[in-house]
């Protein structure tokens, strides 16, 4: 089945799952309330957002230079950069590192890019012991599912479902309270951290001027993953660059406010290779820079701005489509309004055009984006580019030809209603839906009635 067919089938199923919708709506409402509170920390929010937008614009326009700077500065400190154009390259490199270190135990912390390149499946298939150390991802991984939302991966699960899973996985008791549950999970995780040979994490930002890696988190697991293991692998998209260390305070606070509804997340690390005189930290510090279609997005002049996304997930929770069909229906690594722009650009405008189409263009996403991406217009630009690339179906072509002809001449538009009704029905009969009554075109249009009344032929 094509990606498009899968999508529509998944949508049908999700729309019937009212329980999931209720839970998503509750999570969204809670999120929006918390975000509004956290945003109060900005004396001038518009200025902050405009500045962030501008910094990211500069990054996008000069990405080639910033990436090289980042690599040079990281290497100077003793770190290593691996360039991976595809997920396969990234995975092969990771396997090399595992083999070279004869690593047995690997800890991993939340990162949407691991999901994007299929890291878990790959490492597990190779028979290594991989522990997902972020609670939300640990839960989703336990259910063999993909994250539901970038920041809140298990937002779709009930407490009972989670209790049952933890009971099976790490033998917590079934009627456990939330704080006991986290304590049990923490103890379990700690044991894994102590044994870990390799820690794999994502990154929120990469700083070009000094080769440092910024990670924001609430559980402290990313910090442990980078501190205990002898080798720290960071997987990051090439879009994660920020020019200078100075930019980080703005971006950390925007990310946590819009992402989690917190002024600042609990742990904010800026890490790099260990200095000679330092005791803690990994011996090996490797950053894998993943492209995987990002340069195609960069190449599209108009929609390039989509790479500014800092993955806060705020647009998802205001989106009428996301909140009703849920993250899993998209069938792609990145979902919600921003995924509807980047996935088609990165992996094929035509193959993923259903994602560009899956927007009512209500415009709410634009208002909540911390970096002010022109989200709803980019979605329309995707549609435009796909048409300009010649990917229209014959039916669509005919429909728009007829429409344009009618709209360019009042004479055509004032033609007999039966013809118009017939054409309208022909064009939409398959798509209108059985649950909707066909609207009827009036015998005489306003225009015709006006002409009859006030003259003009």
């Amino acid at each position: 089945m094509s990606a498009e067919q899968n999508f529509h089938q998944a949508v049908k199923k999700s729309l019937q799952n009212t329980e999931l919708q209720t839970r998503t709506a509750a999570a969204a409402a809670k999120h929006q309330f918390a975000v509004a509170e956290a945003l109060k920390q900005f004396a001038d929010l518009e200025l902050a957002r405009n500045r962030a937008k501008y910094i990211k614009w500069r990054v996008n326009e000069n990405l080639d230079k910033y990436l090289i700077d980042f690599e040079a500065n990281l290497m100077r400190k003793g770190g290593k950069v691996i360039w991976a154009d595809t997920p396969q390259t990234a995975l092969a490199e990771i396997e090399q590192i595992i083999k070279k270190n004869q690593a047995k135990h690997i800890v991993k912390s939340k990162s949407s890019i691991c999901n994007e390149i299929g890291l878990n499946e790959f490492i597990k298939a190779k028979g290594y012991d991989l522990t997902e150390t972020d609670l939300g991802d640990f839960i989703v991984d336990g259910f063999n599912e993909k994250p539901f939302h970038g920041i809140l991966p298990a937002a779709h699960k009930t407490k009972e479902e989670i209790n049952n899973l933890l009971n099976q996985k790490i033998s917590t008791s079934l009627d456990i309270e939330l704080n006991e549950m986290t304590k049990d999970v923490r103890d379990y995780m700690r044991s894994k951290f102590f044994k870990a040979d390799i820690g794999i994490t994502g990154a929120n930002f990469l700083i070009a001027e000094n080769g440092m890696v910024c990670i924001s988190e609430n559980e402290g697991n990313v910090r442990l993953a980078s501190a205990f293991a002898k080798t720290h692998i960071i997987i990051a998209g090439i879009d994660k660059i920020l020019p200078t260390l100075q930019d980080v305070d703005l971006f950390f606070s925007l990310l946590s406010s819009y992402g989690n509804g917190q002024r600042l997340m609990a742990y904010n690390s800026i890490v790099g290779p260990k200095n000679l005189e330092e005791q803690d930290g990994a011996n090996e510090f490797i950053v894998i820079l993943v492209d995987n279609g990002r340069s195609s997005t960069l190449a599209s002049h108009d929609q390039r701005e989509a790479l500014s996304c800092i993955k806060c997930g705020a647009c998802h929770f205001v989106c009428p489509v996301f909140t009703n069909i849920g993250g899993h229906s998209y069938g792609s690594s990145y979902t919600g309004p921003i995924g509807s722009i980047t996935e088609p650009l990165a992996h094929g405008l035509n193959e993923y055009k259903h994602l560009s189409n899956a927007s009512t263009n209500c415009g709410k996403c634009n208002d909540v984006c911390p970096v002010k991406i022109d989200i709803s217009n980019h979605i329309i630009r995707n549609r435009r580019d796909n048409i300009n690339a010649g990917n229209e179906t014959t039916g669509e072509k005919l429909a728009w030809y007829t429409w344009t002809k009618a709209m360019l001449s009042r004479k055509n538009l004032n033609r007999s209603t039966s013809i118009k009704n017939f054409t309208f029905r022909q064009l939409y009969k398959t798509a209108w839906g059985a649950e909707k009554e066909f609207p009827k075109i009036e015998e005489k249009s306003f225009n015709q009635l006006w002409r009859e009344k006030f003259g003009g032929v």
Partner: protein
Amino acid sequence: MKIDLFIPCFIDQFNPQTGFNMVKVLEKAGCQVNYNIEQTCCGLPAFNAGQWNEARQVSEKLLNEITPDRNFVCAGSACTGMIRNSYDLLFQNSSYHNKFRQLQKRTFELSEFLIDVLKIENLGSKFSGKVVFMDTCTGLNGCGIKAQPRKLLEQIEGLELVELPNQDECCGFGGTFSVTNSDIAIHLGNKKLNVIKETGVQTVVSTDYSCLIHLKSIAEKQESNLKFLHLADILAMGL
């Protein structure tokens, strides 16, 4: 004041009476209404669908038809938003630059025009009963229209305005979206209908006939007796 009237294609084709109600309301507000009989559409459906070449042709036609220096009053926020926001994307750096910039400054949705430009709240309309006002996304998010239609409705003699919960939730229409993703469109439409039904109010008013027709076509299949009125329809009552 002389104004140019814009009648969205949805009203032109599906509900011409609303067009005449626009004229009635605007005349009551002291305007002399001019309507260009060659007028068709603002280009929005094609623009939204990504058919920008087609949209440009149709929009150019409109730009060539307008009277210079006259306010352009639209019977809908979708067309207003199209002209005000999206013409930027179609005509920036084109030979139409000055024309569309001029038009943008003079284009208003009906309630904006009455409240913000003419500063008229009470036209003397009469309606007896309760109504809910349904915000449209193009109005709310695209044009910042929220207070204006409410002010007008509140002044109607005998009318009681009931506010909907989750006012900013999309009704699911979205132009071609309701064709490419009819399942989601109908799902969202049903949700909107349900919150409306829960208020017990029978009359739904909105600034845009497109969203109304979407809900109406779902409601009709369910044999509901909800009534869907354009803002101009209700404002014209009792005039």
